[in-house]
């Protein structure tokens, strides 16, 4: 909820999610090391630290790939919505796994030098002009710095102090971190790994992330071309309005509108959550309140206000039902303005 800096609270679901996540990480690391040793050709001698470097590196990259797929996938299927709600924990965990990877690399490849390991990382290989000899570790280090900034500011204290706009802009740095990681692997592991698994995994991951973001991004920007009924926008036939869920309508100008059905009531509010701009229309109604799928901020359907003691307000919109079809007026009311819902069965 949205009071002071305690927006995201621990729930039994979050605790279960974290346990599954930590269990999954342990299984991956143990499994990766076991398979690496089992499939090692005779004569090769891979140190346990090297196996761990590969395990933590691949895990951090796959976790970040998954995190970047959560947003667009949640727009395509409801199954991904629980991950939206827990994305922050996944992000911080990914940073910690990447930090272990970087620590092991510094210790193993730079720790035996007389030069400071961090300095050695930057000066031991100055071949910036070479493609297959490029100092790829530097790319990973910069990506890690970006991930650190994001993990360190993931608490709501920073969201409240920086403001949702700046906070969101800062956290879009994850896209550049991902690009740097793709380059880190392409110019690093791919150059000396004989196995096609790494190339395939990297290519599949990058194509999936880029493809999903571009496809859902295009769909999300397309305005709803359904102006009808004296300038009101057609939302959907009543039969298509699922209970406790919303349809999102995008006017040609202004923000998207989330039109919710709660039993026999239809109400519309802004699709933009006051917390971090989350898509309210992808959430659902919990305890009579519209609940953001990102971090659980809640708003009352009838006036767009968060229930006491919270103070957030979002714009409301007038709705009406004509011939069993729901329409919404694209002109917003001021945030927090009471707006009577349209009642199913009571239309003129």
């Amino acid at each position: 909820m949205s009071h002071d800096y305690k927006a995201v609270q621990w729930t039994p679901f979050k605790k279960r999610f974290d346990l599954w996540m930590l269990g999954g990480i342990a299984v991956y690391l143990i499994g990766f090391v076991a398979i690496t040793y089992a499939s090692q050709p005779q004569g090769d001698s891979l140190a346990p630290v090297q196996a761990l470097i590969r395990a933590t590196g691949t895990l951090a990259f796959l976790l970040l790939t998954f995190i970047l797929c959560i947003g667009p996938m949640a727009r395509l299927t409801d199954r991904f919505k629980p991950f939206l709600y827990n994305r922050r924990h996944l992000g911080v965990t990914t940073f910690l796994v990447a930090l272990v990877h970087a620590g092991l690399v510094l210790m193993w490849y730079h720790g035996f030098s007389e030069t400071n390991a961090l300095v050695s990382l930057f000066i031991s290989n100055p071949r910036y002009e070479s493609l297959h000899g490029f100092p790829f570790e530097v790319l990973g280090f910069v990506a890690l710095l970006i991930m650190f900034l994001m993990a360190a500011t993931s608490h709501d204290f920073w969201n409240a102090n920086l403001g949702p706009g700046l906070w969101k802009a800062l956290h879009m740095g994850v896209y550049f971190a991902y690009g740097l990681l793709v380059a880190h692997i392409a110019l690093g592991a791919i150059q000396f790994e004989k196995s096609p698994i790494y190339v395939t995994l990297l290519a599949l991951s990058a194509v999936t992330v880029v493809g999903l973001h571009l496809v859902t991004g295009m769909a999300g920007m397309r305005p709803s071309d359904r102006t009808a009924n004296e300038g009101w926008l057609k939302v959907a036939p009543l039969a298509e309005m699922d209970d406790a869920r919303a349809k999102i309508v995008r006017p040609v100008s202004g923000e998207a509108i989330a039109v919710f059905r709660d039993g026999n009531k239809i109400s519309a509010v802004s699709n933009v959550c006051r917390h971090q701009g989350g898509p309210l229309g992808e959430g659902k109604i919990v305890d009579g309140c519209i609940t953001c799928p990102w971090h659980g901020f809640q708003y009352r359907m009838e006036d767009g206000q968060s229930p006491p003691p919270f103070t957030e307000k979002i714009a409301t919109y007038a709705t009406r039902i004509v011939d069993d079809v729901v329409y919404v007026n694209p002109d917003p009311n001021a945030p927090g303005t009471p707006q009577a819902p349209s009642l199913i069965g009571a239309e003129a």
Partner: protein
Amino acid sequence: MKRAHRRTHFAIWAVLGPVMLWLLVLAVQNRPAQPVNESLPDALIEEAR
């Protein structure tokens, strides 16, 4: 999500995506025939051999 944020989001991926994939193709095409990790200190490579 705000409309402006969606546009920025899309623009970043429209630029970053092709760059990322181009780099990936270039990196795979230019892999050395005999894979070596030239960014490692020579002494370590010798020791590994």
